């Protein structure tokens, strides 16, 4: 969307990502989405009197991995308490990092060549979750709420960008690239729908080269689509206010996904006084060079590098193919694609099958060996399987694993040997001399006629390309 007039939007994003650890940030309770309510709780994450936090080493390493991937400076850091009352926060303070975060001063380069500075990426703990009862089931109008502390104390990293983002599409591209990085580092599963990645957006508008306008913070955007819509809505709202002679108040706003609008949550004057102070129950975190190097050396290649490598295997890729590459990188399917290409599959076909068929069954990919993928697509390429059959075999492999040839056989995709296909084609030429004559004279449409006839005779077992090859051989 382009803004009216000469207006430009200025956006900074705060991305909260839950870390993919086995346990919570400060206790040994399982960090697990979807457990029965209040089953992953202990004295520490329930804030029971007398309990004390002990930092999860893996959470620190994942935070450092994020820092390395975002080119941040990793430094000695401390933990603070952010004090405010809220029922889903068991201690009524949140342990977070304040003036000395573990990561600061990094950047992220986007595929379009733009550069977004990262101010900081710090560690903090997540809160529990409330369910609102009565009324409409939303917080407003509810008559009581129920609290589940399974999420309380789950480790988070908050990644704060500089206000370098200039459009909703830009914001979306940043969030998508960041998500890819978080997944690649192993820090996060990037599942926005499960709340493991949540975004707050700081939005303001200005005329080109004017100083930044007053910003509003939009909380808790839970999908890339919400991010996109909320930023556009908010920028237009601010432009309307200013063009009507009003001024923007600095405030926190809530995005309503259903009504597609933002509304005031809290003005600056109502802002909480968090009374930050050093968390006395935790000591300083000062990762030495050896520890940092261990994390750095353990990091796999990031999406940008992987994207570049895979794209290089395609010759003059089309836009659609580039998009397919994007899907393959996002979902981490390169091992399948590379194995197939190495086995002789055309790169475009390998990318297409991975970006479509494997992507559709992404949660089942552990069942599928790269060799089985390669073998199936190679059979398709060689004409032994039709495209439809190839997709069916891949579906079966994803669902329950196994050997592609046996599956094809069991499905009755009995490969027509070129001998039997040849004799079928020869038979049809004999039976349909007129059509054959017209085809020989160059009427290519007739190829479809012969393919149809072959399919009828073979109950769909034949491969269209192979039929054409047979026809051409006899032309």
């Amino acid at each position, binding site marked *: 969307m382009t803004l009216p007039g000469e207006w430009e939007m200025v956006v900074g994003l705060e991305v909260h990502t839950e870390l993919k650890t086995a346990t919570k940030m400060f206790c040994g309770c399982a960090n697990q989405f979807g457990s029965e309510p209040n089953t992953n709780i202990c004295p520490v994450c329930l804030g029971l009197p007398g309990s*004390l936090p002990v930092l999860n080493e893996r959470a620190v390493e994942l935070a450092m991995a994020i820092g390395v991937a975002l080119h941040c400076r990793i430094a000695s850091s401390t933990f603070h308490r952010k004090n405010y009352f809220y029922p889903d926060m068991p201690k009524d303070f949140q342990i977070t990092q304040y003036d000395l975060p573990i990561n600061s001063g990094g950047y992220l380069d986007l595929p379009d060549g733009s550069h977004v500075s990262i101010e900081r990426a710090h560690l903090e703990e997540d809160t529990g979750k409330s369910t609102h009862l009565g009324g409409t089931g939303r917080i407003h109008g509810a008559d009581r709420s129920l609290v589940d502390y399974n999420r309380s104390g789950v480790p988070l990293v908050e990644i704060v960008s500089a206000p370098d983002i200039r459009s909703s599409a830009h914001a979306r591209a940043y969030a998508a690239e960041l998500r890819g990085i978080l997944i690649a580092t192993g820090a996060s599963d990037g599942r926005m729908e499960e709340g493991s990645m949540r975004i707050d957006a700081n939005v303001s508008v200005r005329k080109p080269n004017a100083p930044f306008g007053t910003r509003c913070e939009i909380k808790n955007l839970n999908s890339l689509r919400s991010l996109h819509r909320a930023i556009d809505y908010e920028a237009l709202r601010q432009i309307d206010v200013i063009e009507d002679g009003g001024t923007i108040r600095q405030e926190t706003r809530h995005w309503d996904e259903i009504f597609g609008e933002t509304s005031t949550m809290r003005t600056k004057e109502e802002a909480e006084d968090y*009374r930050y102070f050093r968390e*006395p129950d935790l000591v300083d975190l000062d990762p030495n060079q050896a520890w940092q190097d261990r994390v750095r050396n353990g990091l796999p290649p990031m999406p940008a590098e992987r994207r570049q490598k895979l794209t290089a295997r395609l010759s003059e890729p089309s836009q659609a193919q580039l998009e397919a590459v994007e899907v393959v990188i996002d979902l981490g399917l390169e091992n399948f694609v590379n194995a197939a290409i190495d086995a002789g599959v055309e790169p475009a076909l390998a990318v297409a099958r991975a970006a479509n068929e494997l992507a559709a069954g992404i949660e089942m990919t552990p069942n599928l060996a790269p060799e089985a993928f390669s073998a199936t697509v190679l059979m398709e390429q060689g004409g032994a399987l039709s495209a439809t059959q190839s997709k069916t075999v891949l579906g079966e492999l994803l669902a329950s694993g196994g050997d592609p040839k046996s599956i094809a056989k069991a499905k009755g995709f009995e490969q027509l040997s070129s001998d039997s296909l040849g004799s079928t084609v020869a038979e049809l030429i004999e039976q349909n001399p007129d059509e054959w004559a017209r085809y020989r004279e160059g009427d290519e449409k007739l190829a479809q006629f012969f393919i149809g006839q072959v399919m009828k005779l073979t109950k769909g077992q034949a491969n269209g390309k192979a039929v054409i090859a047979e026809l051409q051989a006899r032309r």
Partner: protein
Amino acid sequence: MKTAHQIAIDVQSGAGSAESELERTLGVIAARNEELNVFLHVDEDGARSAAASIDARVAKGENVGPLAGVPIAIKDNMCQRGIPTTCSSRILEGWRPPYSATVIDRLLAAGAVPVGKTNLDEFAMGSSTETSAFGATRNPLDPTRVPGGSSGGSAAAVAADMTSIAVGSDTGGSIRQPAALCGLVGMKPSYGLVSRYGLIAFASSLDQIGPFAKNVMDAAILLEAIAGHDPMDSTSLPEPPPSLVAHVNDGVAGKRIALVRELVDGADPDVVASVERAVEALKDAGATIVELSIPEFRLGLSAYYLIAPAEASSNLARYDGVRYGLRVDADDVAAMNEATRTAGFGAEVKRRIMLGTYALSAGYYDAYYGQALKVRTQMIEAFKRAYLDVDLLIGATTPSVAFEFGSKTSDPMAMYLSDVFTIPTNLAGDAAVSVPFGSGEADLPVGVQLLGPGRSEAQLFAAARVLEIAEGRS
């Protein structure tokens, strides 16, 4: 009354039994608890079954531990699984923790028999046990006077011969001051020596659990049993527990000990006289005594009464009526929080929460809390400078002997001043011990305080033992 040391020897050798020791303890509690209000809860069943199991283990020839069959009193700010734990506050009344403090586990592993939970100033905020929501504890030596606080119940349990030893916690003097007022040995160990896991926090950077006993040896045995690294406490010192018992009789020959002017200035003449006599006794035992002024000590009180309340205001936020303890119903959750906290906390706790909230709030942080943290740095440096020249410091534990009920309750500042000699040690994270030496007004005991750097517990016990011997209590 047998010492803990003797009880353990008797139980382990079969000359006595955990059950008979426990019955004696329960008998004294039954006879005196109503008058003195020492125990908020006595776990007769649990203690009896623990004692029976110890006797059974002894019968099987097992070595039960250094506190075999010793009944022990627990300050009611330490969580013990299934046992009511209140911090002497209405807000936690009836709460039974689903877990035990590390110190409880260590006591059980050493063979001790926890008999119940003792009274304290509400959330350990006080110096007389008068702020307890469940009534003040009386000083067994003179029931018209306070036992000191905040660990007044634990001190009184030992002073009344209910148990030979007890555990307390010391944030600004809460072990040493009641020990002094009840005529006991009480130590505030180095910060991090004893795990705080399961100790209900008052001021996290200052709180430390420590022992009460009638004599130095028992205090050393108890501290050795509960000390040592705990992975559940990030601030726990990383090393194994120190050897204390083996060094109790090391003496002070060749040690340099400084009498600190700021640790006697303003104390009652009887108290000053006791400290001066203690200095002579140490000199007689071969120590070199010097006099020292550490002006930073005068600022301790101000820094402490900002730092401790600031941490407390955050530590006590969790008592909000949502998960455990008291709830006073209201229309919405914020109103419920407020009604619960207003009804559940007593005046002193509210005062300190207010003070701490103010000290941390926007616009005041730098002037108050921030400045206090810098004073804390100066305090630590002042101690370090002193310890370049001397091994230990000596002074009074408290300005006076046990005072009468109500004499300081209307004036918070007067009450706070009774911690003036004990606070510097907490700010520095160091160790100090109070040992009874001489007597003052109404023939009540005076406590002399010995202070040392971090990890100096063995030296402190050895010096305290010299004073104990000099007093004819061997």
